[in-house]
């Protein structure tokens, strides 16, 4: 066979192989192609064997040409194989489409009661200001709930809170967490900074804004040199974290027998931010808590010297805070425990 003929044969062989390679569309066809052209008994191997038949001086050139063609076919095969792998993966991914709009699988988690969540937030904020959490009994002595707090029997301020009594009547369900002020001061010496969350009870008909069982968070600080400016500072810092950093606070005079001066704090309504809405009854303000400087008589009742130490105290309702934050219009939802309400806080 002439060299020219063998070159021509190789050229035709290579062209046919490349054109057939283009037609291979799956791994099976690709493998058949490889067997047919690059296999041990394939067309190229057969061609190699034909070269042996050439005159010796023609063999190196023909061999080189055949090796070049083999390299070309192998590289084309690799390229084609990669391409087919890509196509196969593309086809698989295409077939694996899912409805991305189906709802996510619900997690098997529960949740905390909204009042617990609010209490935790309040505690967290005051803890950062050095207040430590304390607690006291819910069934309380008249002395702690009233008398030691400067509310003697038949004091007109007793009309402000209606009380559940137990027999004997010196035992009652605490109407506020303020009695824990006395219990704390009896046990400790200034400086004092405590925060007292807990359940309280008042003999009050239930309606959308009244519950006979509720939580209160009492705060008390006693130290030398404490002033109302400190009280304001602590409460403003609280409001800025509980609501939003620019929230405005308003302080007015109010009366609670165990503080003097007495304070009521309002904050801008968190729902409308002061412009007026249903939650704040169009006033832009929410009455948030009562506070004041601890009454000198209260300090004397626990053997503190009101000329030496001053204290401030405040009390707030987590139900009210939760209600204004979330525009809840009925306090009875909290202890009604309908899961359809509670689960909205998850």
């Amino acid at each position, binding site marked *: 066979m002439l060299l020219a003929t063998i070159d021509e044969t190789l050229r035709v062989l290579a062209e046919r192989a490349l054109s057939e390679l283009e037609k291979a569309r799956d791994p099976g066809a690709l493998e058949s192609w490889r067997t047919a052209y690059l296999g041990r008994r394939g067309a190229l191997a057969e061609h190699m064997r034909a070269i042996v038949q050439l005159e010796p001086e023609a063999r190196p050139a023909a061999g080189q040409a055949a090796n070049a063609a083999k390299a070309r076919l192998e590289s084309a095969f690799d390229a084609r194989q990669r391409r087919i792998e890509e196509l196969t993966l593309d086809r698989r991914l295409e077939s694996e489409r899912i409805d991305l709009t189906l709802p996510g699988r619900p997690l098997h988690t529960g*949740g905390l*009661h909204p009042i617990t969540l609010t209490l935790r937030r309040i505690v967290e904020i005051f803890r950062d200001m050095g207040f430590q959490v304390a*607690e006291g009994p819910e*069934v309380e002595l008249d002395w702690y709930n009233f008398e030691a707090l400067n509310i003697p029997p*038949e*004091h*007109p301020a007793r009309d402000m809170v209606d009380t559940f009594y137990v027999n004997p009547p010196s035992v009652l369900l605490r109407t506020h967490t303020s009695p824990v002020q006395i219990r704390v001061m009896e046990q400790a010496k200034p400086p004092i900074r405590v925060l007292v969350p807990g359940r309280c009870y008042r003999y009050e008909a239930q309606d959308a804004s009244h519950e006979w069982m509720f939580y209160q968070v009492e705060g008390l600080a006693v130290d030398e040199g404490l002033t109302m400016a400190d009280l304001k500072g602590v409460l403003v810092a609280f409001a800025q974290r509980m609501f939003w950093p620019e929230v405005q606070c308003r302080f007015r*005079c109010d*009366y609670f027998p165990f503080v003097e001066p007495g304070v009521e704090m309002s904050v801008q309504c968190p729902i409308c931010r002061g412009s007026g809405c249903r939650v704040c009854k169009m006033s832009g303000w929410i009455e948030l808590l009562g506070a004041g400087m601890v009454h000198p008589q209260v300090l004397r009742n626990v053997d503190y010297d009101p000329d030496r130490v001053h204290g401030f105290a405040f009390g707030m309702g987590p139900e009210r805070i939760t209600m204004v934050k979330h525009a809840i219009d009925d306090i009875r939802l909290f202890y009604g425990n309908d899961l359809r309400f509670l*689960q909205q806080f998850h």
Partner: protein
Amino acid sequence: MRVPLRWLKEYVDISLSAEELAARLTMSGTEVSGILRIGIDWDRVVIGQVESIDRHENADNLFVARVRLGTETITLVTAASNLKTGDVAPVVRAGGRLGGPVLEPRRFRGVLSEGMLCSGDELGVSPDKESIYILEPSAPIGADLREFLGDEVLDIELTPNRPDCLGVVGIAREVAALTGGQLRVPRPSPPAGDVPATEVVRVFVDDPDLCPRYTAAYLEGVRVGPSPPWLQRRLYLAGMRPINNVVDVTNYVMLELGQPLHAFDADLLRNATIRVRRAKKGERLTTIDGTARELLEDVLVIADADAPTAIAGVMGGADSEISDSTTNIVLESATFDRLSVRRTSRDLRLSSEASKRFDKGLDPELPPLASHQAVGLMLELAGGRAATGLVDVRQPARPPRRIRFTPRDVSSLIGQTYSSKEIEEVLRPLGFQLEPSDDGVEATVPSWRMDVEGKADIAEEVARIKGYDAIPSVLPSGNLPAAAENAILRWEEILRSALAAAGLQEVITYALVDPHAEAKLDPDAGDRLLPNLASIPTSNPMSVEHSQLRTSLLPSLFATVGANLRYQQRVSIFEIARVYLPPLDPLPTERRRLAIAMAGQRYPESWSANQAPVDFYDLKATVEAALNTLNLSCRTTPTRKTQWAHSGRAAAVELDPGGVVVGLVGQVHPRVAQRFDVEGVDLYAADLDVDMLLAQAHEERTIRPLPRYPAVDRDLALIVPDQVSYADLAAAIGSAAGPLLDHFRLFDVYRGAPVPEGHRSLAVSLAFRSPDRTLSEDEVVSAMEAIEREVARQFGAKVRGR
């Protein structure tokens, strides 16, 4: 209390608008909860005078009036029959309005009415809806009615420490201090007549402890009749109904000065005698509200020579009431003990404008002033002659309270510096007298400010009048208390979080329960539940359902499950709260408990979940997970000692190690569940003593290094008789395996063929490992054989498939 601004302005100059004034008062502690505006929405309402009034020619029940409005005269048709020629009355002109729709001229049976005459009710100045409101003859004809009658009424909510503000003059003092407006307090003189009052009326105070001061004035020859319009209007705007001139004056002066007064018909008092004494057994009195009342023995009464004629400080008696025929009057102005009035008012369930003032405590220096003021007004409005002065029976006057303070005392409490001048500007208009003393100021507290006791009160006066908003806000710079943490409360919150993370919803239920609630937990209780006598009742419950302090959380939780199962397929809830255990010593024992209740589906409702109902093992896993966060482990030991549980599905929770029983877990007995409306699904519950758990909670947990050598895993399925518990089997495996057993877990429980009847197959997966080498097959085989021998010996266990 309602304070009309026109009235208030008699005592103090006011240049602020009603809104501004309300805001200032509110910020200083006198809360204005609303402003009622009389005349704000009147348009073209003018003062007219009736020139003629005739019956309508074509209608029996209508009248045609010619009414002069300044220069012009218009025709009006009205149905009211009280008009006379010359009457001065309010007229809405056509095109004007009284707040409602615009009034159009309208023809009534052929006569064109060019406006409308108004009733007092329409104007908001009297309760009368039927007749036309007749103005005083001095009203300027043709003038805009709003100029003459319009008013703004502040609705004021007073705190109980300020009874001195229960009169318009008290509010005027506040306004003067707040605004600097000139104050004009009434200073009436004692009546001067021909006879001293002491010769006409005799007053005996038998019980001075309940009546520190009693004054009586005497008037004769008065004519009882209606009060003039201005007085009636003021009373009405302030919230009281006009009665007659004598009674109206007593009410007017009470609203003005805050001192209640009572007028007796002197001719109905036997022997012209007033005796202030406690009621005697069996005495009765019909009060002016028409109710006959039995008087308890310690009720303070005003009696004549024979019998009670008023309940002191609360309400007068009908027998001596002022009537149209009254001509002679004894006027009482007294101070009664506030506790006595409070008790009487509460015991009789009878509250009046007078009792509401007396029970806050009134100034004993006020009665003569109020009496003189009232006598003067009565003489003016009802005529007659007064006796000279008063009968005044009183306890020795208490010396005025004096408080020494320095500006520094104020600033050290408030955190804001006030000058002596600023302090004086606040205190003087409030009635304080100030004298310089050695190192500061001595303030004499006015007799009506019984709430001001010391330096802190002085500081509040200054701070509130100058405004709390003027006080800076600073963060306290003092020492912090020693760092301490309430570990119990911290663990309590960790436990809460763990339970929520385990899929439970926290609930908060009422601490007061029905006395029968806890009896519902007894499956054998039957239909007639007995009240729980071992719990503490409240003595004044609002309802039976919430009358007793609970000793268990379970009934509240079960009821919550029942209520929620109406809407939900899955109810898994918990509560950590206190129970209250007798005896009272002097208080009950309050213990924290955890209750868990689970019923319905295991997972939240979803399109893809493999749903199954919850069972005991869900509950057990939850309890174990919760205890694990406290670094506690537990065993569940079957028990029959539970009131509320299914007899075969209840276990005591024992801490491991230790064996302390901290509570119970189990399925709720179906009869118990049914009482809480949980039917058709199984209810599971746990009831644990949280105080016990929290006391044992600790942070010690040793973490093992990761293993360096591979484990050899072997599965072992053992067929054992049903009565062999997994816990016993597991204990045997653990002890027989020797030190090479790293851990094992149960992976299958099977009952049914080919496992023989009365048996089950328990399959465990065991992992063997040595910390210092790779185990050989022989070592594992020998450990496995040891296990198999031991379980065969103890329980007759056979290896499945062998």
